[in-house]
């Protein structure tokens, strides 16, 4: 008897390797790993068609724990390697996993270019505002004043905002989430996966050993509601523990301000709706920081455009007249017969 069984639905376990996970106990990376596994199972991706590419750092260990194809490469270069993977086989579903040092110091140039080229892949930046793997030096996203082995008196240089960098580089998808938000993160990851082109996702990740609670100012239980805003396309930009605060464009200025429903005659209609295709709004949202503003999470910007590898392939196909033979190639141009 031949009973056709429907393909079994994959679970997070199917994306789990037999390798012992080597992050410090309590590291935010565990939660992200869990989220990614369950998201992939939910989406129903084919493990053999999925590739995780990473550079070097704690975050970059990620591929070893995913039962897919995985390439743990060198510090900062994962976007370049992933670009090569896509150039060779555009059908592969490619995810890049990177840390703040990997993506924004040594690999800043490659991140810039993978985003502006719009290579079709998901780029996950685990931002812990520190160099975890090398034992806690400050990173390009560390707040000024960060005390670390290399900055014992506190860092003095200005940090870069990952999301603003991505928007500036021309990313057409910028999302944000937080390691501990197991409900929220999959929604952003799914959107990132759906998006054709380079999808940049910044995930605030707690390094419990070298930078514990650095995001406490907006992730802490008591402050989260007041200091976070989950942005959703087409929905009013409201937040606050009573859900009565909102954002709007300050009259007469190119900036946002916080207003409260019920105060000064403000109603829900006065609150700005999120338009994820609006680059100016995306920049304003990405720049928000406590204590003045809540931190924006969710899909901040999504505005699809032509992707690099597809364009390259199409261009080649359109000019290709036939499959060339090497003999023809060698005989192209001027030749002459001797004897």
């Amino acid at each position, binding site marked *: 008897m031949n009973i056709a069984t429907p393909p079994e639905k994959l679970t997070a376990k199917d994306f789990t390797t037999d390798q012992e996970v080597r992050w410090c106990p309590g590291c935010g990376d565990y939660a992200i790993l869990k989220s990614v596994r369950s998201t992939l199972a939910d989406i129903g991706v084919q493990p053999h068609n999925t590739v995780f590419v990473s550079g070097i750092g704690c975050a970059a260990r990620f591929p070893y724990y995913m039962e897919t194809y995985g390439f743990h490469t060198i510090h900062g270069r994962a976007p370049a390697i992933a670009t090569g993977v896509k150039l060779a*086989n555009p*059908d592969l579903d490619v995810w890049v996993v990177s840390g703040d040092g990997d993506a924004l110091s040594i690999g800043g140039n490659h991140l810039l270019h993978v985003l502006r080229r719009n290579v079709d892949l998901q780029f996950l930046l685990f931002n812990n505002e520190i160099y975890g793997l090398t034992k806690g030096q400050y990173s390009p996203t560390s707040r000024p004043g960060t005390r670390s082995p290399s900055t014992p008196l506190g860092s003095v240089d200005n940090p870069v905002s990952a999301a603003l960098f991505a928007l500036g580089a021309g990313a057409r998808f910028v999302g944000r989430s937080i390691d501990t938000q197991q409900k929220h993160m999959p929604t952003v990851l799914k959107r990132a996966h759906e998006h054709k082109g380079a999808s940049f996702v910044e995930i605030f990740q707690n390094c419990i050993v070298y930078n514990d609670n650095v995001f406490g100012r907006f992730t802490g239980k008591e402050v989260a509601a007041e200091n976070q805003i989950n942005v959703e396309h087409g929905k009013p930009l409201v937040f606050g523990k009573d859900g009565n605060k909102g954002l709007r464009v300050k009259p007469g200025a190119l900036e946002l301000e916080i207003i409260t429903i019920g105060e000064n005659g403000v109603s829900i209609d006065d609150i700005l709706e999120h338009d994820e295709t609006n680059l100016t709004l995306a920049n304003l949202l990405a720049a928000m920081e406590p204590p003045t503003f809540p931190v924006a999470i969710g899909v901040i910007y999504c505005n699809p455009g032509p992707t690099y590898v597809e364009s390259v392939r199409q261009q080649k196909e359109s000019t290709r007249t036939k499959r060339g033979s090497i003999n023809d190639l060698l005989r192209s141009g001027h030749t*002459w017969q001797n004897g």
Partner: protein
Amino acid sequence: MAVTAEHVEEDFPRQEIESAVIRFAGDSGDGMQLTGSQFTLATALQGNDLATFPDFPAEIRAPTGTTFGVSAFQINFGSKGIQTSGDILDVLIVMNPAALKVNINDLRPGGLLIADIGAFSSRNLTKAGYSENPLEGNSLEKFKVLEVDMSRLTKEAVKEHGLTSKEALRCKNMWSLGLIYWMYGRKREATVDWLKDKFKGKPEIAAANIAAINAGHAFGETAEMPAEVNPYTIPAAEIAPGLYRTVTGTEAAAWGLAAGSQLAGLEMVFCSYPITPASAVLHTLAGMDNYDVVTFQAEDEISAVCAAIGASYAGSLGVTSSSGPGVALKTEAIGLAISTELPLVILNSQRAGPSTGLPTKTEQSDLYQAVYGRNADSPLVVLSARSPSDCFDTAIEAVRLATKYMTPVILLTDGYLANASEPWLIPDFDDYEPFPAKFHADPEGFHPSLRDPETLGRIWAKPGTPELMHRIGGIEKSFDSGHISYDPENHQKMTDVRTAKINGVAADIPAQAVECGTESGKVAVVGWGSTYGPISRAVNNLIEDGHSVSHIHIRHIWPFPANMGDLLANFDQVLVPEMNTGQLITVLRSEFLVPAEGLNKVNGQPFKIFEIEDAVRERLER
């Protein structure tokens, strides 16, 4: 093939000569490279053997009239096997005083200098650093000098085509070409066709250039020439019958890479970041729409090599190309390809260094970098091409070894090879044996560190293959499972395997042959890369004189062919000419304990035949 000038009914006698070395020299804007390559084509079509040496400044538009803006193209052509672009000039054509100043020392006494006196204005003389006009003093006494106002004659010739004076002057290179065509009895058709095609959209420019060529040619036919200016004829060389073309090292390397990929049954992903003199390979491949080649201009050399590695990981052939400074940037990633055992071809068109050095001048000084220049024990295969056309076969060999042994291969060419051209008996590609790459697909007992017991090459399991999901990376891997391993014994084993794999290539390559001369004797002249021409000619000359000298030229630099040590031991003395301060020689001494001696120079110019002959003679007299 009969050698005839264009007008068979020429009423003057042509003097028959065996070969000639001529150089066109002018301002970067004077079109000397185009002039030279057209002369090359016409000469090849005439059946002569030839070798060229384009030599141009690093600046794109150096200030006009200055000595550092001088661009030159040299060609040696003749009826007997031509091996080099020539030691010394028979004819020098200069388009301005600066070109005279820079090049006159290379003209042989009694040689012919042709100067465009129209460009010898006091302003140009000053710019070239002359306080008085050298054409007027007696400093050029030992040469024959033909002074022609090419600028004026060109303007007159193209008058009817309505060009601006500046545009008209730009045709003077074609005027000079016409004159030289007449002198050596070359045909103009190919250049005329080329001009028509190049200026398809601008017929008046094409017509003017053609008029300039014809005028230069007519000048030769009709003008009263000084007695010593003879028209020559150079009989066709005895070259093997078959279909020929001219080819530069750049073209041959690009085509060889594409050909190798086809033999391996792979698409090539070619990733590069522009750098002189390597960029032209990217340009050539980018234009090959009909071939299975994808090109990627990366944001830097690191990205280029990384994208190539990513492409190889995903089942294409990743290739990257650069010059020394760019290869330096790629070093860390090459280590990753060694560690993950992925195929990768790195083409290095060497140039003079260190640092930016002399970007447009040739040198062979990246051999250490190729063989030794990485952190840790990181062996790979190093090959070098000896001539422009040899870049084709060497590139194919690079692809073969990279895919068979799952290893990076560095292919060394140099600025001279990249730009120089030579006639090439076009091979029949059907004669090349395919070497199809194998992709692993069997899940039974699979792990990513499985290797071919014979070659020790790791399996190639590309993403997309069902049931073979696995992880690889730059951390040391277990020999038995491919998983991360920090076990010291395993590291010893993996290091040994990586070394043995590359050493094993020696058994898969031809034994080192002797190019000319006997298998043993007094002096072996051992070379690699573009010194092939001058060494070959020098050694042949010495053998003709009855000396015991042999020429050994190495393609496989790492690992060496298995017989290398024994072969070198057959000679009393080993001389290693190199355009560096002595790199191959160090490797030879260290591998084979031979008391080799070096002959070294780094002046941006290829070796002259006599330099090598002299060095050998000195040793023969010992």
